[in-house]
């Protein structure tokens, strides 16, 4: 098939994990994204597609996390943004 070996994964971003108090979901997204971008040797403005993995309902006291919010905080304007709903 035509897609075989046509696309590659080129960077991975980690964050602290476990019980990490006083951190929002948004802050973990931003840290993981920034680390993945740096790991690939890219700049934020290179990213023109943003897929936010399926998420659970917002934790108590936090606003819902959308690709728009994330793009705004990353300072990017993706041509394609998507989020799998619950």
């Amino acid at each position: 098939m035509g897609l075989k070996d046509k696309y590659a994964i080129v960077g991975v971003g980690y964050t602290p994990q476990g019980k990490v108090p006083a951190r929002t979901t948004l802050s973990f997204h931003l840290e993981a994204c920034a680390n993945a971008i740096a790991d690939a040797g890219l700049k934020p403005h290179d990213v023109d597609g943003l897929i936010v993995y399926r998420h659970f309902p917002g934790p108590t006291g936090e606003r819902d996390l959308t690709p728009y919010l994330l793009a705004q905080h990353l300072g990017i304007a993706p041509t394609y943004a998507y989020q799998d709903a619950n």
Partner: protein
Amino acid sequence: MSALESGLCRYVLLTYAHSGDSLRRVLDEISGDEAPFGLFGAAGGYALAARRAMHEFHTGPDTWKHIAVGQRQWARLNPRAILRDRPLTLEDYEAAPFLVEPFRLPDNCLVNDGGRACILTSLERARDLKQPPVTIMGLGQHNPSADLYQPGHLTGPTGAQAAFRQALGMAGITRSDIDACQIYDCFTYTVEITLQDYGFFEPGQGAQWFAGGTIEPGGAMPVNTSGGQLAEAYHMGLTPLTEAVMQLMGRCGARQLGPETATKKPEIILCSDNGGVLQTHACCILRRWTP
């Protein structure tokens, strides 16, 4: 990949994160028509399927303990793993309390704060970047039902069987070409039914297949080499996917597949994800790109 294939995008960022109490609310919320009968939450649904599998093909804790212990062995080698400093023996497993019968505590994935992300691009662009490219050889997806209770699917085949067939077809390989697996492991039983549906062993033969350290460091088929969601961290499908990428890039330190862990240096790794309660499935075959 459709965003790349259509030419809309050059670099796609894929991200997951979690904090606070939201996942726990999903897992143990008492809701739905079945709740008055004592069935609720994700653990309840998977436990029901596992209980049925115990009846149909005689699996059970004697199979699952090898998965829990095997993955914990990998976690011991991973500085990021949340349970790195919590060794688990077969005896510890057998002495652990039930969370939802037949699942004991070590059968369940972690509930943790944190995030994970990765970046996809074309192979052409990947060649000029910092890391060695890991290409997507094959993809498959199959969603036979969103409803756990359809008896034809309760104990498999889940969507894994058809999804794997598609992925192998796209990749143009056979199962024996796969060097290691990173399997979505919300529960130990999920690992068993997924590998069973992929055809690594016949229904009910999991206890023999997993026994003796098959999936552990030094084993013939390493599985969930970060510790997985049972012992490293839960980031949905990105726990298995990113670990496969890091292994193929050769960046895994003490847990690196190859001479470091008395395993084969991997060329091809199979990853899975599933959703709903067990039924929906996606899988992905990755390889270390060598021109």
